[in-house]
């Protein structure tokens, strides 16, 4: 039984020039205690997915279709008041900028106590004791004194720890973490990721980790969803998605990241840019940039389908299609190419033509 199910979610932004479909038919689920990474380039819709789940879509954005089910309860249709009880209690949220997630006028203690008392039946003293424990757990030194400090008295890394404490305050089952380390320096980033991973593991909370950093995903997540132009391009166990990507976009994305382990003269680049929402190509949204696109990709939109260890929205993996074999062949080539590049730095041969 999964903790969170997102089924065929559609998010639209009505505008004067027509309705923009920002999320188009997204489905995935998160098991209890699991860390699901959501990765993609800016504009792919990762943050929007998170916002839709916590019910914080900014108007005029709205859920136009599909459902979001948390512990068997449908939460996408709830009113603002009902949703307030779910946010914090069942779903905690961590955002990118720790300074704007905290109220600068209140001490961190007051913000923590308020959150705890809103959701749990405890008195003030007990709430304060819990708040101190939370701050200690998140690695804030001298928590008894620091609890009465204001957010501006904390450094960036410490603030993000406070935000994590705040997200965990009412013991939610799911944490939506939207780029929690992007605003932080690398050394702090490593600390925060470790902390998030440890705390959620200890408390059995599942995490939806939204980031554009593949390295963070690789080290932290159990499964990963790769998003492109408002759709899930590929989803599967993190190791398989990174090392045997089934979708050409995932493969291209992985190869374009400068890697500490390889000495390539040139990075693999994906030409072009992600389409704008008002100009999403017909068929597969990736087809103008895809080196392996064929006729069908231009006209028919692929849904997620079985692709070996992962699920990919790519016709190369369609079992009922004569092109079927190509999928496996493509994956094989990708592996060979990756291996070849690691061995010989300048081996940048084009992919051999594949006969169907």
């Amino acid at each position, binding site marked *: 039984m999964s903790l969170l199910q997102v089924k065929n979610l559609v998010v639209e932004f009505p505008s004067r020039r027509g309705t923009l479909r920002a999320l188009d038919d997204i489905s995935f689920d998160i098991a209890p205690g699991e860390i699901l990474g959501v990765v993609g380039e800016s504009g792919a819709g990762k943050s929007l997915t998170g916002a839709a789940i916590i019910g914080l879509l900014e108007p005029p954005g709205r859920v136009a279709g599909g459902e979001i089910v948390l512990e068997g309860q449908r939460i996408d249709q709830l009113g603002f008041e009902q949703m307030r009880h779910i946010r914090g209690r069942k779903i905690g949220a961590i955002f990118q900028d720790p300074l704007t997630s905290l109220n600068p006028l209140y001490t961190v203690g007051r913000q923590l106590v308020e959150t705890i008392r809103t959701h749990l039946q405890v008195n003030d003293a007990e709430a304060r004791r819990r708040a101190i424990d939370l701050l200690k757990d998140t690695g804030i030194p001298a928590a008894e004194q620091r609890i009465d400090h204001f957010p501006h008295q904390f450094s960036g890394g410490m603030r993000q720890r406070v935000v994590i404490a705040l997200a965990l305050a009412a013991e939610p089952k799911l944490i939506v973490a939207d780029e929690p380390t992007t605003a932080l*320096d690398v050394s702090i980033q490593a600390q925060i990721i470790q902390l998030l991973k440890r705390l959620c593991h200890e408390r059995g909370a599942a995490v939806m980790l939204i980031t554009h950093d593949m*390295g963070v995903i690789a*080290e932290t997540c159990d499964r990963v969803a790769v998003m492109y132009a408002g759709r899930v391009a590929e989803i599967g166990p993190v190791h398989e998605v990174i090392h045997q990507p089934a979708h050409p976009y995932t493969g291209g994305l992985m190869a374009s990241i400068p890697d500490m382990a390889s000495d390539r003269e*040139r990075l693999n680049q994906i030409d072009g840019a992600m389409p704008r929402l008002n100009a999403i190509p017909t068929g597969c949204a990736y087809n103008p940039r895809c080196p392996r696109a064929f006729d069908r990709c231009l006209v028919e939109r692929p849904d997620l389908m079985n692709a070996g260890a992962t699920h990919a929205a790519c016709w190369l993996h369609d079992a009922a299609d004569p092109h079927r074999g190509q999928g496996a062949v493509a994956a094989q080539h990708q592996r060979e190419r990756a291996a070849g590049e690691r061995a010989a730095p300048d081996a940048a041969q084009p992919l051999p033509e594949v006969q169907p």
Partner: protein
Amino acid sequence: MNAVLQSQQQGQGTGARVAGAQPLVVAHDLAKTFDVSAPWLNRVLERKPRTLLHAVDGVSFEIEAGKTLALVGESGCGKSTVARLLVGLYEPTRGGMHFDGQDAHAAFKTAEGRKLRKRIQMIFQDPYASLNPRWIVENIIAEPMREHGILTERGAVRERVGELLKSVGLSPLDMAKYPHQFSGGQRQRISIARALATAPEFLVCDEPTSALDVSVQAQVLNIMKDLQRERGLTYLFISHNLAVVRHVSDQVGVMYLGRLVELADKRELFAQPRHPYTRMLLDAIPQMHATGRARTPVQGEVPNPLSPPSGCAFHPRCPHANARCSAERPVLQQIGGVRVACHAVEEGRI
């Protein structure tokens, strides 16, 4: 002071001769101090002393023609200040820079300075803020040429702008468009084209790809490498991303709180980092092929640069620190083929 400077310069001179090439850019003991004191009235009434921020505190390096030196470090370590010092946007508090044998900061003030500025250009981090939104691309790229009087005749300027756009992978037809019509990566290519307009030899790139997505970052990095190969450009590349640095650079300088803690050949630095801070940085990068890797990151944060720790600025976070590290500030010195500022390395403790 002067004797120290001279000996440093001599040292660098001999080092360069051994390498067989004259360095194009030589920074010696570069320092920049900012006065961040409270307003005068507050200082008088509240008896607050002047506060000085040593953003860059004695940084020396040299870059050979056609090579890339990368500066890495966390925010607030002074890497962008170094960039601004090198292009003459800031006046150094101490030390200076020699470009192609002449004292650049002295030359910037004279009439000769314009000629020098033409040879040194800069690419900024944010391609959204560094292009004038009211100008068409043609004017953006042509401005440096007009400013320096390289080309003034309209047809010739257009032709040159078209060539520059082509060299960064854009179409000459794009010159009639405005910056908002381009994506982030395309805008950064326009900034590169603008920087190339005066045919410079030395490009200072301040985090040129950190505002970009990875697939677009790859496009921009590839273009920068191609241009370097074709035109023999020399780069100072500033970044906080070690994987990017590893991809583009020949030499790497690691900065911490305004000082260089390690300066080494790229291969050397990544294969065998000496300074504990370099090791920590390398260990902190999340790695793609290490799925599910568990590690213990170094604790602590960068201290406030207004009140840096005594001795070695890294000692409060350093696992190898001892009494000497908290008392005496290590200087950058040649140890085993690399330059490193660390007592522990010097004493052979690590």
